[in-house]
C-alpha cells in the first residue's frame, strides 16, 4: 500500500505530461542519411567489426530488400521512408571513455536528469536502500558507459555492449547471435540485423547467480534517427540473472523508429528474468510525433528445467508492436509473460506473446492487463501452441482489458493451438470499464477522479507490477498514474 | 485371514516419499481409526489403497481378502469392495447423482454376477438408503456434488457407501467441515453399516468423530508410518497431548 500512496503523490506533484521529453544539445557524429550497403559497411567499420559480422549484416540487408512491410497488425501507420533517416548517430566524444571521469559531463547530466545512476556508488533515483544495479547506458547508437564491469568480471560474468562483445567474445556472439531470432525472421528484425548499432551483451557462466540486477538504459536523442539495438543474453547451465531495460526519448514532432531485437537463451536449469519499463515519447495528445516501437523479443528455453520470465510495463511510444515470446524446448521449461500496457490519447499498441510448447511438461503463464484511454486503441494478440510431443504441457492465460472513456478501443485476439491431449490449456479474458462504484467509493473518501483512477488501475495491474524488481516497481506505479493523466473528466 | 493386510508399505508422490514402511491389519467387523497431524500421509494412504494415479508404491504389499490389491485398477478395487469416502468429494457437472449412483451400483452388482437394477427398481432401492441420511430426491437429481454444501457432500459420500455395500470402507476426514448435527447424521449412517464382515478405517485429525463412531483400535500416523497403536482411549490421550511428541520422535 505504501507504494500506492507514493504513486498518488507522484501523480499529484508531476506537472508536465512527459518529463523525459527534453533534448540534449550534444554534438553528434552521423552517418549520411539513408540506407544502402555502404551504410551497413560504415556501421560495421565504425564498430571495428570482424569480417564475419559484416557478412552477416550484408546477408540480412540483402534479404531485407526482398521483404514486404507487414500489414496484418491492427495499428496502421503511414509508410516509413527508410531513406529519410539516420542509421548511425553517436555523441562526438572520441573514443569510448575508459572510466566515468572521461565521459562527457553533458552526457552524465542527461542520465542524472533521467535518474539513471552511472556512478557505481549511486543507486537508481529515488529508491533509498535499493541494491546496486549495473547499468549499460546506450545513447542513440552507442553504449556510453557500462558500470560494475570489473566487479562482475571477477565472477566470470560478461556484461558489456554488444559492439564490444563482437570484438572481445566473438565465439559466444557467433554461436548465439541470430540463433533465436534468425536474420530472416521478420521485416524489422531483418532490418535490425543489417544496421544494429548497439545494445547489451550478457553471459552468465555455469552455476552463477548474478549478484546484482543488470540494466540497460536506452535513450534516443538525435533527430531523424532510428535506434536499432540488439541485446543478447545467455544464461549457461544453472545460472540466474535479472535484467532490466528502460527507455526514453525527447519530445519531437516527427515519428522515430525504434526496431530492436532481443534474444535470450537459457540452458539446463538456468533462469532469466527480463523486465522492461518502456516509456518512449508517446507523441502529443493529437498523435503528433512519438516513437514507433517495433521490437522482436524472443527467448529460447533450450535446457531442461530452464525458465524465462518477461515482464513489461508499456506506457510510452506512439505505436507499440511487439510479442516477447518463449520457445519452450527443454523438458519442464517454463515461460512467463506479465504485461501492463497503457495507451492514452492517440497511442496504439498491438502486443502480447507467443508460447511455443515443444518439450514435455513445459509450462507457460500469461497475465496481460491492458488499459485504454483517450482515443487510444490497444490489441492483445497472443499465441499458445502445444506441439505434438509436449506431453503434460500446461498453459494458463488471463487477459483483462479496461476501458476509460468512450472513444478508445480494446481488442483481444488469442490463438490457441493444441496438438496434445495430455496438455491443458486454459484461457480467460474480460473487457470492462472502470467500476463506477469503485470510483465513487474512492471519491467519497476524498480522492479526486485522477487519483482514484490511478489507484484503481494500479490495483488492476498489481499482479503484474509485483513481478517487477523492487527498483522498477515503484517507478512503474508512478508511470501508471502519469500515463493516464487527462484521461478522465 | 484378515480382511486387509498392509505390510511395510512405501509410497511416493512426485518422487517425494510420503509413506515410509506402514504396517496395518484390519479384520472383518473391526473399526480402526488413524489419527495424525496434517501432512502425515493419511490421505495418501487412502489414495494408495484405492489406486489413484500418481501415488506410486515403491515397496511393501497390500492384501485384500488374500488378493494382491496393488495389482488391481482403481475401478476393480471398488468392485471388489474397497470404498473411499473422499476428504474432498469431486464435483462432476453434467452427471446427475442418480445416474452416477446407478451406474456404479450396477457395475458392482454385475461384477458379483447379479442382475443390474432397472431405472424404476433403482429409484426404490436408493430412496430407502437415502431416507436415513436426509438426502432428498432433489439432491439426487442434481449433478454429482455440484453446488452441494459441505454437509450435503459428506452425506452423499455415505449414501454411496450404503448403496455400494463395500467390504472395507475408508473414511477420510469425513468430519471436517461438519457442524455437530450434520456430524451425528453422518455418524449414524456409518454406524448403521457396522457389521461382522465389514472393516472400517476412519481417518481423522480430531477425536470428536470417534465419540460417535467408536473404534476398536486407534493408530497414530506420523511421517508416513504408524508410530503408536492402542485402544479407543488413545484418541482421548491425543486430544490432551497433541501430536508434537510424535513429530519429534519420528524424526
Amino acid at each position, binding site marked *: 500500500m505504501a507504494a500506492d500512496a507514493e504513486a498518488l503523490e507522484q501523480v499529484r506533484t508531476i506537472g508536465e505530461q512527459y518529463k523525459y521529453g527534453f533534448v540534449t544539445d550534444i554534438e553528434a557524429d552521423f552517418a549520411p542519411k539513408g540506407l544502402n550497403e555502404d551504410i551497413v559497411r560504415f556501421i560495421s567499420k565504425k564498430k571495428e567489426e570482424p569480417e564475419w559480422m559484416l557478412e552477416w549484416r550484408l546477408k540480412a540487408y540483402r534479404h531485407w530488400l526482398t521483404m514486404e512491410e507487414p500489414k496484418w497488425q491492427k495499428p496502421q501507420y503511414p509508410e516509413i521512408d527508410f531513406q529519410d533517416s539516420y542509421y548511425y548517430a553517436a555523441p562526438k566524444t572520441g573514443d569510448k571513455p575508459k572510466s566515468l571521469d572521461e565521459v562527457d559531463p553533458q552526457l552524465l547530466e542527461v542520465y542524472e536528469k533521467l535518474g539513471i545512476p552511472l556512478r557505481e556508488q549511486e543507486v537508481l533515483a529515488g529508491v533509498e536502500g535499493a541494491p546496486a544495479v549495473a547499468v549499460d547506458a546506450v545513447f542513440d547508437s552507442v553504449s556510453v558507459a557500462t558500470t560494475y564491469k570489473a566487479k562482475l568480471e571477477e565472477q566470470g560474468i560478461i556484461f558489456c555492449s554488444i559492439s564490444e562483445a563482437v570484438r572481445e567474445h566473438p565465439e559466444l556472439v557467433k554461436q548465439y547471435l541470430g540463433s533465436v531470432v534468425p536474420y530472416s525472421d521478420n521485416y524489422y528484425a531483418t532490418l535490425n540485423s543489417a544496421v544494429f548499432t548497439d545494445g547489451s551483451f550478457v553471459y552468465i557462466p555455469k552455476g552463477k547467480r548474478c549478484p546484482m540486477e543488470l540494466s540497460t538504459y536506452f535513450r534516443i536523442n538525435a533527430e531523424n534517427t532510428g535506434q536499432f539495438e540488439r541485446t543478447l543474453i545467455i544464461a549457461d547451465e544453472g545460472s540466474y540473472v535479472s535484467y532490466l531495460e528502460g527507455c526514453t526519448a525527447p519530445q519531437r514532432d516527427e515519428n522515430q523508429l525504434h526496431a530492436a531485437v532481443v534474444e535470450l537463451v537459457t540452458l539446463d536449469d538456468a533462469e532469466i528474468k527480463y523486465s522492461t519499463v518502456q516509456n518512449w515519447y508517446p507523441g502529443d495528445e493529437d498523435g503528433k510525433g512519438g516513437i514507433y516501437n517495433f521490437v522482436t523479443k524472443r527467448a529460447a528455453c533450450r535446457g531442461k528445467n530452464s525458465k524465462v520470465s518477461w515482464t513489461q510495463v508499456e506506457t510510452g511510444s506512439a505505436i507499440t508492436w511487439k510479442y516477447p515470446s518463449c520457445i519452450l524446448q527443454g523438458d519442464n521449461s517454463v515461460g512467463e509473460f506479465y504485461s501492463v500496457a497503457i495507451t492514452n490519447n492517440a497511442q496504439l499498441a498491438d502486443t502480447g506473446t507467443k508460447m511455443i510448447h515443444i518439450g514435455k511438461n513445459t509450462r507457460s503463464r500469461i497475465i496481460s492487463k491492458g488499459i485504454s484511454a483517450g482515443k487510444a486503441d490497444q490489441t492483445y494478440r497472443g499465441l499458445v501452441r502445444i506441439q505434438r510431443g509436449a506431453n503434460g504441457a500446461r498453459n494458463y492465460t488471463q487477459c483483462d*482489458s479496461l*476501458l476509460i*472513456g*468512450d*472513444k*478508445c*478501443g*480494446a*481488442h*483481444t*485476439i*488469442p*490463438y*490457441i*493451438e*493444441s*496438438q496434445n*491431449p*495430455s*496438455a*491443458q*490449456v*486454459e*484461457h*480467460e*479474458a*474480460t*473487457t*470492462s*470499464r472502470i467500476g463506477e462504484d469503485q470510483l465513487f467509493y474512492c471519491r467519497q473518501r476524498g480522492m479526486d477522479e485522477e487519483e482514484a483512477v490511478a489507484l484503481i488501475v494500479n490495483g488492476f495491474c498489481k499482479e503484474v507490477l509485483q513481478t517487477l524488481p523492487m527498483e522498477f516497481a515503484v517507478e512503474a506505479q508512478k508511470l501508471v498514474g502519469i500515463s493516464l493523466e487527462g484521461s478522465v473528466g | 485371514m484378515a480382511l486387509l493386510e498392509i505390510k511395510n508399505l512405501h509410497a511416493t508422490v512426485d518422487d517425494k516419499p510420503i509413506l515410509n514402511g506402514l504396517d496395518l491389519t484390519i479384520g472383518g467387523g473391526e473399526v480402526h481409526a488413524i489419527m495424525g497431524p496434517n501432512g502425515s500421509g493419511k490421505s495418501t494412504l487412502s489414495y494408495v489403497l*484405492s*489406486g*489413484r*494415479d*500418481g501415488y506410486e508404491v515403491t515397496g511393501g504389499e497390500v492384501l485384500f481378502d488374500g488378493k494382491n490389491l496393488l495389482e488391481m*485398477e*482403481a*475401478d476393480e*478395487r*471398488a*468392485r471388489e469392495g474397497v*470404498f*473411499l469416502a*473422499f476428504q474432498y*468429494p*469431486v464435483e*462432476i*457437472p*453434467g*452427471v446427475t447423482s442418480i*445416474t*452416477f449412483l446407478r*451406474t*456404479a451400483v*450396477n*457395475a458392482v452388482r454385475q*461384477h458379483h454376477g447379479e442382475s443390474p437394477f432397472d*431405472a424404476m427398481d433403482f429409484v426404490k432401492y436408493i430412496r430407502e438408503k437415502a431416507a436415513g441420511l436426509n438426502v432428498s430426491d432433489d439432491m439426487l437429481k442434481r449433478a*454429482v456434488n455440484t453446488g452441494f454444501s459441505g454437509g450435503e457432500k459428506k452425506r452423499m459420500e455415505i449414501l454411496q457407501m450404503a448403496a*455400494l455395500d463395500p467390504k472395507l470402507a475408508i473414511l477420510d476426514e469425513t468430519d471436517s467441515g461438519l457442524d455437530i448435527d450434520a456430524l451425528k447424521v453422518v455418524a449414524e449412517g456409518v454406524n448403521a453399516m457396522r457389521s461382522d464382515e465389514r472393516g472400517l478405517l476412519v481417518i481423522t485429525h480430531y477425536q470428536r468423530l470417534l465419540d460417535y463412531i467408536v473404534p476398536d483400535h486407534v493408530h497414530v500416523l506420523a511421517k508416513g508410518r504408524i508410530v503408536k497403536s492402542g485402544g479407543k482411549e488413545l484418541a482421548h490421550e491425543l486430544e490432551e497431548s497433541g501430536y508434537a511428541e510424535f513429530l519429534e520422535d519420528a524424526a
Partner: protein
Amino acid sequence: MPDGSGHMQPYLDQALEGASNLVGSGVDWIDALRRAGADAYGTHGLPKRRDEYWRYTNLNALADEEFRLANGAPAIGLPSLPHKLVAELATYRVVVVNGRLRPDLCALDGLPDDVLVSGLEDLMAAAPARLEPYLGKIIRLDEMPMAALNTAFLRDGMAMFVGDRVVLDKPVHLISITAPGDRPLMVQPRHLVVLGKNASATLIETHITAEGGSSFNNIVAELHMDDGAKLNHFVFQEEAETSVHLSGTAVAMGADTTYDSFVLQSGGAIGRSEIHAYLNGTGGDCRLDGVYLASDKQVVDNTTFVEHAAPGCRSRQVYKGVLDGQSRGVFQGKVHVLRDAQQTDGHQLSRALLLSPRAEIDARPELEIYADDVKCSHGATAGELDDDSLFYLLSRGIPREDARRMLIEAFLSEAIAEIPLEQVAEDFTTHVRQWLANNVGSARGQD
C-alpha cells in the same frame, strides 16, 4: 472476372457460363447481385491460409479437384434421416436436393395465413419484387468469399416469409440432400428467411449426403428478423465423409429480437459453419451454441461473428467439441462491439476435449471492443478428461471406458442443456451416445 493478374478464379467460369440463362436474368437487381458476388469472389478467390479467418481450414481440396455444378435434382426419394426423434416431429417439410427444391417431397399443408414457404427460384420467377428488399441484403460479400461465390451462382433454395405477429405452430424442417453421381459434384443452395414484427418460428436444417462420390456443398442462408421476432434455429450437419460442407449464415436482428441457434456438426471431410449475427436494434438477444464430434481425418470448423451495433444487446456462445482420431476442430469467434453499442453483454466459451494423441484443436476467440460500458468475456480450454473426476468414478467401481463416456457426455451436456426443444435435445443426447459408442471403446452400461 479474372483477378489482377488475369487469372480466372476456380469455379467462376462455371458461374459466369450459366448466368444469362437463369431465372431472374434480365431483372436489374438480380443481375447486379449475381455480378457483385462474382466480382467479390473474383477479387478474393478461394480462401487461403493467409486469410485471417481461414488459417485453420484448408480448402486445397477444392482447388485440386474440379467439382461440377449439379445439373438439376435427381429423382431420389426421401432417405431415412439420421435423427429419428427429429424426423418424427410434426413439422412443415421442405426438401432441397442438389440445391433445387423438390416440391414432390415437401409437406406444407396447413401453413397458417400470412406464411409463405416456397422455392427461391419459383418466387424469383413469380414475384421478384417480394425478394428484392431482402435477398443479398445482409451478406457482406467482401468478408465472406465463399458466400460471394454462392451469390454468383444464385438460383434456388428455400424462401420463407412469416408475417407480422404470426407464431408458427410447427417447426419448418429443411432437409438438404446432396446426391453426388460419379463425378465430383458441386451444389450452391441459397435460402432466405424473413420474419415479420413479433413473428416467431422454429427452423430445423438437416444436411445429409446420398450415396455416391465426392461433393462440395456451399450453402448460404440469410435470415431477416424484424423487431420483436423470435427464431429457434437447429442445424444438423451429417454429411458424408467424402463431402466438403461450407455453410454461411447471416442474420440481421431488429430491436428486441431473439435468435437462438444450435449447430451439431459430426459429418463431412470438412465441415464449416460460419454464422454472422448483426445486432442492429436495442434489446437483441443472440445465442449461438454448438457441439462438434469428429474422428478420423475430419476437419470441423465453427466460425462466428457477432456484431453489436446497437446498445443494450446480449450475446452468448458456447461451443463444445470432442475430437478423436486425427481430426481437427476449429473454433473462431469474434465479438465486435461498435462505438455506440453501450451496455453490451457478450460472452463466449469454447471448450474442446482431445481423445487421441493425433487430434488437434485450434481456437481463436476474439473480442474487438470500441464501447466502454460493456461486459465482455471469453474463455477457451483444451485438454483431456479431468483426472480427479475420472478417479472418482473409478473409485465407485465404474469401468474406465464407461467412466470416460459418462464424463464426455457430461462435458457436452452444458451445451445440450441450452436446447429449448425437448425432442431435439433428446435426439442430441442419443446421437452423442451413439457416436461415443462407436468411437470411445465398446458400448456398455447406460440404459
